[in-house]
């Protein structure tokens, strides 16, 4: 590695179905940022227990409310009796457990309900691992998302606002709910103005190549601004690939029905791709096979990322 994180920061690197879980050791206590997907909750609990090494998990903080970041909250809270802090913008959604607003029903994802205890507002400063962090509003992929920035160590916890190569699905923009793409531009420009040595993303390894990641993200953003259909195609592929990570396989002859029955996917097709159900299914399978994330075998679509 070409960088070292402070010793009290432990990144539990997961995959794509579960977000990374970032543990901050604080003497006898600890704080966790983001808790993975619900179907991985028991492994998340086991991993956290392993990394805690006898300490008490006092607090979970979430960057945003997508299923792959909050899915372990309920199990961790049951196990460790920790508090849960969510971005202020989604407090009402969590309180009401609004599965529509949480993009659960719409995107074919699941999550165990939980109650939050506190919220973070953009601009809030707080301690993690004995360091001072500031919450910054990072709308785009999720309109209420926060990223957390440590100025003294130049570390950015970026959630799904910035990855080594890209950023999360533009749900708000694609569903016509908010000017998500414009928000992504504002967010990336704000992040780009920070002095950052290390990024701990929501998925993938922590990295030091901040400038390179920013460049890639801005290029991707520009491509989406110029070609919304491309953005829509990418989102549809990414969202279904996520479904397939959980399901691991699906009958090929059930795909068209799955796509019609999953509101976000059907909506994207209606607004952007405008393909007949069978054509949409055929397009999607060929794209996923071409990308190497799925294969067709004996009438099944099989995720190559889970086998």
């Amino acid at each position, binding site marked *: 590695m070409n960088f070292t994180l402070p010793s009290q920061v432990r*990144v539990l690197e997961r995959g794509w179905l*579960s977000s990374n879980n970032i543990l901050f050791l604080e003497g006898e206590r600890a704080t966790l940022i983001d808790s993975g997907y619900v179907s*991985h909750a028991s*492994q998340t609990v086991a991993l956290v227990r392993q990394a805690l090494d006898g300490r008490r998990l006092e607090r979970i903080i979430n960057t945003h409310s997508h299923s792959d970041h909050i899915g372990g909250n309920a199990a961790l809270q049951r196990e460790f009796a920790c508090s849960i802090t969510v971005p202020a913008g989604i407090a009402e959604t969590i309180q009401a457990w609004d599965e529509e607003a949480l993009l659960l029903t719409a995107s074919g994802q699941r999550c165990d309900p939980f109650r939050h205890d506190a919220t973070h507002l953009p601009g809030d400063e707080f301690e993690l691992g004995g360091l001072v962090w500031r919450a910054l509003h990072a709308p785009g992929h999720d309109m209420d998302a926060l990223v957390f920035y440590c100025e003294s160590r130049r570390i950015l916890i970026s959630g799904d606002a910035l990855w080594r190569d890209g950023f999360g699905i533009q749900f708000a923009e694609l569903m016509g709910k908010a000017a998500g793409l414009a928000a992504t531009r504002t967010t990336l420009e704000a992040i780009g103005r920070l002095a950052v040595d290390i990024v701990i993303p929501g998925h993938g390894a922590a990295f030091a190549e901040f400038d390179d990641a920013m460049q890639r993200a801005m290029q991707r953003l520009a491509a989406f601004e110029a070609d919304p259909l491309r953005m829509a195609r990418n989102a549809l592929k990414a969202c279904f690939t996520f479904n397939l990570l959980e399901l691991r396989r699906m009958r090929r002859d059930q795909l068209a029905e799955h796509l019609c029955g999953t509101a976000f996917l059907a909506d994207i097709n209606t607004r952007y791709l405008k393909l007949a159900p069978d054509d949409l299914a055929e397009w999607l399978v060929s794209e996923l096979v071409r990308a190497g994330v799925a294969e067709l075998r004996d009438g099944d679509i099989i995720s190559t*990322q*889970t086998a």
Partner: protein
Amino acid sequence: MKPEQASVASPCINVCQMDAATGLCQGCLRTLAEIAAWSGIDDAEKCRILAAVEQRRAVHASVADPPGNCRA
């Protein structure tokens, strides 16, 4: 174009279920300690873990080779 993989890639394949009998993840065949430590260890140590995973995979008679850049 994908960024260069300077580091050994994580073997996580999104199964994430610990097998009580073996103490290994059913997907990546790492122990809890190995998974938890992964992000903080160097490439040499990651390669050692992946080599151990290969041995375990052989025991479980799987055909899949883990991807990565541990080999010359």
